[in-house]
C-alpha cells in the first residue's frame, strides 16, 4: 500500500470506529505499529492452525509467569546461608498468598520442563529443524540448556535439606569433567564446599545472568522463526502450493491463549490445593540425609548409578555429550528435505528410543528407591520432617546480641545477677550492651581468655593508669557483687 493511499484512508475514518481508529492511526504513523502487528498476527501457517503448535507460546507464557512470581518473591527473599531459609519460611507461613505464589513458581519450573519436552518433540516430529532452520534449532537447544540451568540454580535458593544436598550432588558431577573438573566445581560452588558463597552466585545466575541470556536467545529464536516461516503441516508433501495456509490470527492465537488459560488454571489449582512444602533448614552435618533431585533430573540420577569408578568418564561425559552433539547438530546431519515422520525412521526411531529410555530410567529410579527398605524408610522420615516443619508456626530469626541477653537468665542466675550489677554501675554506657564494646570502651566479650577471675577483680578494684586515662573508674561494689559481675562478663559471647 502506498503511503498516499494510507493517508487517504486515515482522513476518512470508518463510521462507528472513529476514535479508536484515529488513535490507532496516530500511533501507527509514529511507530510503524501496524506493520509490526501485521507481521505478528498475519504470519502464515501452511496447513492451518493446529493445537500441536501451542507449546512454543506456552513456554513463553510460563516464562512470563515465572518472571512475575519471581520478582514478587524477591521482595522478601534474602540469598545468604543464614537468612535464606528464614525468609522463605516467612513467605510461606506469614505473607498473604505467599505459599500460593511460591508454589506457582515451583510448579511453573516443572511446567517449563514438560513444555520443553513437548515443544521439542513436536518440532522434531514435524521436521521443523530442516530447510534453513539450523540456527533456529541451535538457539532452541541453547534455550533448553538455559531453562534447565534456571531450574538447577533456583532449586538451591530455599536452602532446606533437599536443596542443599541435591545441589551438593549436582555440583559434584561437575568435577567429572576432564581436566577442568575440579576447578569447575570450585567455580560453581564458590569454594570447595557448599556454602553462603554458593548461594550468592546461584542467586545472581538465577536472577540476572541466565535470564539475560534467555531474553537474548529468545528474541533470536522468535526472529529466526518468523524469518524462516512456520514449517506447518507435513502433509501432503513437498508440493507446497497445494497446502492451504492460514494466518496466525485468529485461530492459532486463540489456541495459544486457550492453552495458556489451561496452563495457568492447572498451575493455580495445583498451587492452591497442594502447595509446595519447605523442609527444615539445611544441616550439612546430617550424614543420614538421602538427597533426590527434581523429577526431571531423576533419569540422569539413575543413569549415573550404572557407571561407577573408572567407567564414570564414559557414562557421565562421553555418552551424554555424544547424544547432545548429535541432537544439537541434527539439522547438519539430517539434510534430507523429507519432513513426514513415517518417512524418517532413523531420526524418529532414535528420538523415540532416547525419550523412552529417559522415561524408563526415571521410573527405575523411583522403583529402586521404593524397594530398598533402608532408603525408603529414610525418604519417608524426610517427608515426615518436612511435614512437621510446615505445620510449626513461623519462628523469627533472633537478632544476635539479644540471644545472649535472653540466654543469660536461663543459664546462670549468678551471672544474671552480675548483669544487673553491670547495668547499675553503668558499665554498659562505655562497654556497650552485653559487653560488645563501643567508641568509648573496648569489648569485653572473650575477656576470660585474657585474665583470670582474680586478675579481673584486681583490675576492677584498682584500674591501671592506662585504664584511668581511658575513662575507666574503679568499681565500688561488695565482694558478692563483683564476683557475680565477673561471672557475667566471663559468660559473654
Amino acid at each position, binding site marked *: *500500500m502506498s503511503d498516499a493511499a*494510507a493517508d487517504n*484512508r486515515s482522513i476518512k475514518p470508518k463510521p462507528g*470506529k472513529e476514535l*479508536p481508529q484515529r488513535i*490507532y*492511526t496516530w500511533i*501507527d504513523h509514529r511507530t510503524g505499529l*501496524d*506493520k509490526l*502487528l*501485521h507481521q505478528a*498476527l*498475519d504470519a*502464515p501457517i*501452511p496447513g492451518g492452525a493446529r493445537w500441536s503448535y501451542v507449546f512454543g507460546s506456552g513456554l513463553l507464557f510460563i516464562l512470563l509467569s515465572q518472571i*512475575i*512470581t519471581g520478582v*514478587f518473591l524477591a521482595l*522478601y527473599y534474602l540469598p545468604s546461608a543464614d537468612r535464606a531459609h*528464614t525468609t522463605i519460611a516467612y513467605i510461606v507461613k*506469614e*505473607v*498473604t*498468598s*505467599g505459599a*500460593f*505464589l511460591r508454589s506457582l513458581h515451583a510448579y511453573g519450573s516443572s511446567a517449563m520442563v514438560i513444555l520443553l519436552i513437548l515443544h521439542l518433540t513436536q518440532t522434531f516430529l514435524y521436521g521443523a529443524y530442516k*530447510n*534453513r532452520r539450523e540456527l533456529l534449532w541451535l538457539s532452541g537447544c541453547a534455550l533448553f540448556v538455559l531453562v534447565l540451568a534456571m531450574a538447577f540454580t533456583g532449586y538451591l535458593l530455599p536452602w532446606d535439606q533437599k536443596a542443599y544436598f541435591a545441589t551438593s550432588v549436582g555440583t559434584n558431577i561437575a568435577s567429572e569433567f576432564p581436566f577442568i573438573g575440579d576447578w569447575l566445581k570450585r567455580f560453581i560452588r564458590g569454594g570447595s564446599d557448599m556454602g553462603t558463597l554458593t548461594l550468592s552466585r546461584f542467586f545472581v545466575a538465577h536472577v540476572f545472568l541466565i535470564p539475560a541470556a534467555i531474553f537474548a536467545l529468545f528474541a533470536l529464536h522468535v526472529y529466526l522463526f518468523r524469518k*524462516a*516461516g*512456520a514449517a506447518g503441516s507435513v502433509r501432503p508433501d*513437498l508440493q*507446497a*502450493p497445494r497446502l492451504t*495456509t*492460514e*494466518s496466525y*490470527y*485468529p485461530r492459532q492465537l*486463540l489456541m495459544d*491463549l486457550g492453552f495458556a*488459560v489451561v496452563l*495457568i488454571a492447572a498451575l*493455580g489449582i495445583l498451587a492452591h490445593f497442594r502447595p509446595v512444602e519447605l523442609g527444615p533448614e539445611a544441616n550439612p552435618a546430617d550424614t543420614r540425609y538421602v538427597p533426590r533431585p527434581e523429577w526431571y533430573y531423576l533419569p540422569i540420577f539413575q543413569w549415573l548409578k550404572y557407571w561407577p569408578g573408572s567407567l564414570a568418564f564414559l557414562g557421565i561425559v562421553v555418552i551424554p555429550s555424544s547424544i547432545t552433539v548429535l541432537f544439537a547438530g541434527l539439522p547438519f546431519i539430517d539434510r534430507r528435505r523429507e519432513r513426514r515422520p513415517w518417512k524418517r525412521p532413523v531420526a524418529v526411531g532414535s528420538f523415540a528410543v532416547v525419550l523412552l529410555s529417559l522415561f524408563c530410567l526415571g521410573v527405575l529410579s523411583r522403583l529402586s528407591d521404593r524397594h530398598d527398605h533402608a532408603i525408603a524408610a529414610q525418604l519417608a522420615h524426610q517427608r515426615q520432617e518436612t511435614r512437621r516443619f510446615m505445620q510449626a508456626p513461623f519462628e*523469627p*530469626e533472633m*537478632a544476635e*546480641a*539479644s540471644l545472649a*541477653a*535472653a540466654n543469660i537468665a536461663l543459664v546462670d542466675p549468678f551471672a544474671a545477677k552480675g548483669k544487673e550489677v553491670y*547495668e*547499675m*554501675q*553503668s558499665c*554498659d*554506657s562505655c562497654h556497650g*550492651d552485653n559487653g560488645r564494646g563501643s567508641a568509648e570502651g573496648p569489648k569485653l566479650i572473650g575477656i576470660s581468655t585474657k585474665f583470670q577471675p582474680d586478675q579481673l577483680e584486681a583490675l576492677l578494684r584498682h584500674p591501671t593508669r592506662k585504664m584511668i586515662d581511658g575513662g575507666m573508674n574503679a568499681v565500688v561494689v561488695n565482694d558478692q557483687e563483683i564476683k557475680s559481675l565477673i561471672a557475667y562478663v566471663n559468660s559473654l559471647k
Partner: protein
Amino acid sequence: MEAESKTFNPGTTQPSSGQFPPGTNSSDRRSFLGWLLGICTLSVGALLSVPLVRFGLYPLRVKTTETSWSDLGDEGKFALVTSPVRRLITVEHLDGWRKAVFQRTVYVTKGADGQTIVLSAVCPHLGCSVPWNEAQGQFICPCHAGVFARDGKRISGPPPRGMDTLETTIKNGRLMVRYQYFRQLVRTKEVVA
C-alpha cells in the same frame, strides 16, 4: 520452497490496510472473537493479580515492624510506691522475619500529680544508666553528675531535660510499658526510631 519465496493467499485475511485491528476483515465474527479473547485474557490477568497485589502489599496491612509492650507486673503493686522502683523489662522488637529480644532498666515511680509513671534509665545527656540514690532521695548520674528528682524532673547538671517518661497502659490489671529510645543532648523529648 518455503513460505517466504511464494506468494500466499491466506484465504482468510486481507493485507494490511490500516484497518483496526489488522488481520481482520469486515466479518463480525472475527472481531467478536478478538474481543472475547481480549476479555478472557484480561479476566485471567485480573484474577491472578489479586494474590500478587496482596502479596506485595502485605506490609501495609499487617504491622511488620513493631516493639512489643513489656509487662511490669500487677498494677496494684505499684500503687503505694514512695520511692522509684527499679525494674528490668524484656523488650521484643519484631522486624519482618527478625526478632530482637533485649532487656532494659526502667524505674516505676510517682509523677508530680501522684500518678504512676515509668521512667527510662537512660540519661538524656549522654546515655549512661542512671541509678536511684535512696540516701539522697535523687537520681544521680555517675557519668557527669546530672541530678534528677524522684519524679524524673531535672534538678541540676549537664542533662538538657529531665528523665524521659515512657508510655504506659493498664491491660488486664497489669502495668504495661512501651520501651522507646530518645535522642540525647536535646531539650525536647524526641523518639529515635
